[in-house]
């Protein structure tokens, strides 16, 4: 635990999103629009992890991530943990929970889907299948693996 926290600099107050699936930290940065956050955001990519092999990590100074926001990032961090830090101490810790319905974020990969032709808020049902996340479009009803999703929308 000690060594892991050392690999990315510690923060005084804020949120650490840990155990993000490797390669997905930047998607979370985009999703939560952390690039326009006024304080320090530290991103660690491909850090060694006992449970995941490699993982990404994000530390956001001066922001307490809500559980609702945590659920939205769950798609990129199905085993993610969120640590709320106050005065260098973890005061609250919870796991991300994948919502049963993901709205807005995903662009449907099916070019013939109505959502790619009219301004529609997309909706995807999450189908958790032995650790492999599948997503079903509410409109065209096609089922995709997460790796099939090529594009995500900003807020």
């Amino acid at each position, binding site marked *: 635990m000690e060594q892991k926290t050392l690999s990315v600099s510690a923060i005084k107050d804020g949120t650490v999103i840990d155990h993000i699936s490797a390669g997905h930290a930047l998607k979370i940065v985009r999703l939560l629009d952390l690039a326009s956050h006024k304080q320090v955001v530290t991103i660690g990519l491909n850090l060694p992890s006992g449970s995941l092999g490699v993982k990404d990590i994000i530390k956001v100074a001066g922001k307490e991530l809500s559980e609702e926001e945590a659920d939205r990032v769950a798609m990129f961090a199905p085993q993610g943990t969120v640590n709320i830090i106050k005065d260098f101490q973890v005061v609250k810790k919870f796991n991300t929970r994948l919502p049963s319905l993901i709205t807005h974020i995903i662009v449907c990969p099916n070019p*013939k889907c*109505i959502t790619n032709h009219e301004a529609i808020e997309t909706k995807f049902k999450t189908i958790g299948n032995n650790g492999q996340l599948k997503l079903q479009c509410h409109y065209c009803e096609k089922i995709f693996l997460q790796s099939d999703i090529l594009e995500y929308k900003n807020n």
Partner: protein
Amino acid sequence: MASLAGRSIVSIKDLSKEEILSVLGKADRLKINPEPRLLEGMVLGSCFFEPSTRTRLSFETAMSKLGGKVVGFADGAVTSAKKGETMWDSMRIIGQYVDVIAMRHPLEGAARRASEATNKPVLNGGDGANQHPTQTLLDLFTIRECQGRIDGLDIALVGDLKYGRTTHSLAQALTHFNVRLHFVAPDSLQMPDYICEELKNAGVEFHIYDKMEDVINEVDIFYLTRIQGERFPDQMEYERIKNVFRLKKEMLSDVRNNLKIMHPLPRVNELDEKIDDTSHAYYFEEAQNGLFVRQALIASVLGKI
């Protein structure tokens, strides 16, 4: 069982087994006892954003035979869609004029979207390669009619099983019943994995073949579909398969007496016209049954039966 009144039917999965059986039962009754005044004073909006003469005529005739009126368009490309109006706006406005909507659209998910645009029931007559639930219902109705049951049957689905939405929806609907399925297709056009997985999860027995002869003598229903040339990058391969996947009268010499051949039509050359006069041909009855099933569905969502 929830009432179908006021509900949109976009996907066959919108209906439970009880609801499917209830629609089939109502179609049975309407086939025997026509109700020419049941929907007097009601209007069907027939919204075909893509032409499909047979499906459209079947919906419109169904409404007319129940005493209702029909308004609409047969080809969306020449109406508002061309002026840049969204489908959402069109359906919202049309929903204010009519009591029920039948629609077809080239884009997948269009019917689901339309059902969110209006509070009138929307019946999906095909959204791209996605769903066509009235076809599935008329197929189930036809199977039950010609065999007297669905449970216990051996049913072969034959042809383009990879891209054919008709066979996908039928296979999914048959998970409600105790049937054995037999998939006959060239390797490159076999039933997709996600359907096979659904069948496994539902405990449905299925078998895979690449020749019609391997299974035709052992089934009660032989459901044949068209193989389209544009699916093949290699035209020589298509020519070869086209000739392998051709049902000829000679192939029926040892089949079960009760075998019925179904086909969603139109056919090209996969179904020999010499079969039309045999006791096994049932595809024209199948097409006619669309009328009764659509009557039952329209009247159900309008809360009239």
